[in-house]
C-alpha cells in the first residue's frame, strides 16, 4: 500500500473546514454574481488607460519614432525598459505553475491560476514594445522566417534579438496552453452549475465538452506534468535570452557573463511582487481569504527576500567586476551609473530592490497584509528602475564624448507605458470576473491532505504511538 503522510505542523492551505462543494461554490461565486461597483470602476479606469495608450501608439506610428525621446545615442529608452520589465513580471506565473509543481509545493494550487493569467497578460504587454519600437510596424512580420519575394531574405538567426522573438512567442504559447488546459475542467464545473442558458452555452464551448472521466484525468495529469517539465527550462531560458540582448553586445556595462542568472533572479523577484499585489487585491475583492491565506502571502514574501538578495549581490558583483577588470571604459560606465547624471535612478533601484525586501526577514512583516502590499509595489518600482539603469545609464554616454546625451521620455512614450497598464488590468478584470480565479479541481485535489478539516482530524493522530499510527494509516485508504 501507499503510505503518504504529510506532517500537520504546517498550517493548512485552505482555511474554514471546507468540503468539495464549498470549494466550488466559493470560487464560482464571482462568476455567478453581478460585478460590484468597484469592479466596474476599476474596469473602466483600465479601459481609459488602454484608450490613451492606443492613442499614444497611433501618434507614434503616424508621425514616426521622432515623437519619442530616443535618439542616435539612446537607441533604446523607455520602450525596451518597459519590455524587459513586463517580461520579468511574466516570469512568476510559469515559475509558480511549473517549477513549484515539480517541487511538489502544494501551496501553489491557491495562486497558480491567477499567476498564470498574470503571466499571459504581462507577456502580451511586453510584446507591444519591441513591435512599436520598429517604427515601421507594418514590417514587423519580417522578424519571422516567412518566405518572401526578396530572395527569400531570412532573418539573422545569430542575433540575440531574433532569439528573443522565438523565446517570447514560445513562452506566450506554452503559458497559454498550460493555463487553458488547466481551465478546461473548471469551465466544465461552471457550466454544470450554470443557471442561465447563455452561461451554459458559452461555458459549454469554453469547456470543450469536458466531462471528467477517469481516463481524461489520467491524461490531464500526464499533460500537466510534461508541460511543467517543458516550462521549467523555458522560464529560465526566456529571461536568459532577454539578458543576451544586452550581454552579447560589446557595450561597457552590458558585456557581462553575470547577466543571465541576474536577470532570471530579477524576473522572479518582480514577478512574485506583482503576484502579491494582484492576489492581495483579489482575495479582498472576492472574499477568497480562505484560499489565498496568509501562508501563501508569506511564502511569496520569502521568495521575494531570497531573489531580492540575489539581485543585490549581482549589483555588487557588477561593481566589483568593473573595478577588477581594470578596463577604463567599464570602470567609467559604472562610476557614472552610481554618481553620474542618472544617480537618482541607481539609488532608487538600490533602495527599492536591495534594502526594502530585507524587511521580510521579520515574520511579523511577512505576515502583514498592508506591508506586503506596499512592499510588492515598491519592489516593482525598483525593478523598473533596474531596467532603466541598465539601458539608459549604459547608452547615454558612449565612446565619443560628442555623442553624449541626456534622455527623457516624451508623452507618447509615457502614454504607451500607461496604455500597457490599461491592457493588463482590462484583461485582469475580465479574467477575475469570467474565469475561476483559483484552480477548483486542483484545490479539491489537495483538500484532503492540506485542508483545515484534514488538519483538525489528523492532529489527534500525531499523539498516537507509531504502531497505532501505521494501523490507522493502513485502514484510511
Amino acid at each position, binding site marked *: 500500500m501507499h503510505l503518504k503522510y504529510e506532517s500537520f505542523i504546517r498550517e493548512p492551505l485552505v482555511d474554514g473546514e471546507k*468540503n*468539495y*462543494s464549498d470549494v*466550488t461554490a466559493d470560487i464560482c461565486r464571482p462568476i455567478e454574481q453581478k460585478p460590484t461597483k468597484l469592479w466596474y470602476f476599476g474596469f473602466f479606469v483600465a479601459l481609459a488607460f488602454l484608450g490613451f495608450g492606443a492613442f499614444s501608439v497611433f501618434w507614434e506610428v503616424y508621425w514616426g519614432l521622432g515623437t519619442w525621446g530616443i535618439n542616435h545615442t539612446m537607441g533604446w529608452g523607455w520602450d525596451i525598459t518597459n519590455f524587459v520589465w513586463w517580461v520579468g513580471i511574466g516570469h512568476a506565473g510559469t515559475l509558480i505553475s511549473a517549477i513549484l509543481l515539480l517541487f511538489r509545493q502544494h501551496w501553489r494550487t491557491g495562486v497558480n491560476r491567477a499567476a498564470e493569467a498574470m503571466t499571459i497578460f504581462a507577456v502580451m504587454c511586453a510584446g507591444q514594445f519591441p513591435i512599436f519600437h520598429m517604427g515601421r510596424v507594418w514590417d514587423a512580420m519580417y522578424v519571422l*522566417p516567412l518566405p518572401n519575394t526578396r*530572395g*527569400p*531574405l*531570412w532573418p*539573422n*538567426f*545569430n542575433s540575440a534579438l531574433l*532569439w528573443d522573438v*522565438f*523565446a517570447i*512567442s*514560445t513562452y506566450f*504559447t*506554452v503559458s497559454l*496552453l*498550460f493555463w487553458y*488546459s488547466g481551465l*478546461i*475542467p473548471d469551465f466544465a*464545473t461552471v*457550466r*454544470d*452549475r450554470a443557471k442561465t442558458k447563455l452561461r*451554459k*452555452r458559452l461555458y*459549454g464551448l*469554453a469547456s*470543450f*465538452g*469536458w*466531462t*471528467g*472521466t*477517469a*481516463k481524461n*484525468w*489520467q*491524461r*490531464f*495529469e*500526464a*499533460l500537466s506534468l*510534461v*508541460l511543467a517539465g*517543458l*516550462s521549467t*527550462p*523555458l522560464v529560465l*531560458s526566456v529571461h536568459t535570452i532577454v539578458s*543576451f540582448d544586452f550581454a552579447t553586445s560589446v557595450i561597457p556595462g552590458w558585456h557581462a557573463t553575470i547577466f543571465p542568472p541576474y536577470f532570471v533572479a530579477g524576473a522572479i523577484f518582480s514577478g512574485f511582487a506583482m503576484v502579491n499585489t494582484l492576489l492581495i487585491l483579489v482575495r479582498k475583492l472576492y472574499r477568497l481569504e480562505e484560499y489565498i491565506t496568509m501562508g501563501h502571502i508569506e511564502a511569496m514574501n520569502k521568495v521575494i527576500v531570497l531573489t531580492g538578495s540575489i539581485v543585490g549581490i549581482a549589483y555588487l558583483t557588477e561593481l566589483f567586476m568593473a573595478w577588477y577588470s581594470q578596463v577604463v571604459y567599464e570602470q567609467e560606465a559604472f562610476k557614472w551609473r552610481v554618481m553620474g547624471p542618472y544617480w537618482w535612478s541607481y539609488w532608487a533601484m538600490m533602495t527599492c530592490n536591495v534594502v526594502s525586501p530585507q524587511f521580510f526577514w521579520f515574520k511579523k512583516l511577512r505576515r502583514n497584509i498592508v506591508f506586503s502590499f506596499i512592499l510588492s509595489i515598491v519592489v516593482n518600482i525598483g525593478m523598473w528602475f533596474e531596467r532603466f539603469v541598465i539601458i539608459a545609464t549604459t547608452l547615454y554616454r558612449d565612446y565619443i564624448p560628442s555623442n553624449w546625451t541626456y534622455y527623457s521620455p516624451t508623452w507618447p512614450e509615457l502614454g504607451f507605458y500607461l496604455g500597457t497598464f490599461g491592457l493588463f488590468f482590462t484583461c485582469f478584470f475580465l479574467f477575475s470576473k469570467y474565469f475561476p480565479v483559483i484552480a*477548483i*479541481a486542483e484545490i*479539491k*485535489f489537495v483538500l484532503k491532505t492540506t485542508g483545515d478539516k484534514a488538519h483538525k482530524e489528523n492532529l489527534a493522530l500525531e499523539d498516537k504511538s507509531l504502531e497505532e499510527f501505521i494501523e490507522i494509516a493502513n485502514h484510511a*485508504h
Partner: protein
Amino acid sequence: MAVKKFAIACYDDEAPLFDAVHKVRHSGYKLHDVYTPFPVHGLDTAMGLKETDLHIAGFIFGITGTSTALGLMSWIFTSDWPINYGGKPFFSLPAMIPITFELTVMFAAVGMVLTYCYLNQIMPGVKKHVFHPRQSDDLFVVVVEVTEGTDETELMNFLNETKPLETDVQIAEEGWWYGRFDKEENYSKQFAS
C-alpha cells in the same frame, strides 16, 4: 457511437468510490466509466486502465521541433542564402542553440495539447452527456452499462449495496457529438430496445 442505457451510482467520498469500482469490476457488470470532479489518484489502476502514452507523443513532437529548427537554420545559412556575419563560420552551431531549444519546447507543447484534445475527444462545440450535474462539483459518479443481458433490478440492488448517495437509470449517447450545452437531448425515441 450509440445511444445506450446506463445505471449510475453517485458517491461523495473516495473510499466508497474505490470500493464500488472494485466490486463492479469483479461482478462481471460492464463498467462504462467513472466521472470525478478532480483527478483521483489510483482510480485508473483500480479501473484497470493502462498508463497513458501522451508523453511519447510529446517526445516525438519535441524532436520534430529540434530537427525543424536545426535543419532550417543550417540550410538557410549554408546553402540557401549564406551571409558573412563578421567573418564567423556559416554553420555556427552555438548560435543556433537558443532557437533550437525554443522550437523544441514549442512543438512539444503544441503537439501534446492537440494530441491530448484528440485523445480526450474535446474541442469547442463538442458535447457529451453529463450523467450528474454535480459530477464536476463534489460527486464521484460510477456509470455501469445496462446491456441486453443485464437484469436491471438485480444491477440496481447490487449498486445500492455499495452505499451510494443516489442511483439512477439514464438513456444517453455514449460518445460525443456537436451540440450546445444549453439544449437538452431527448433519447427515448432513438433508444429502440
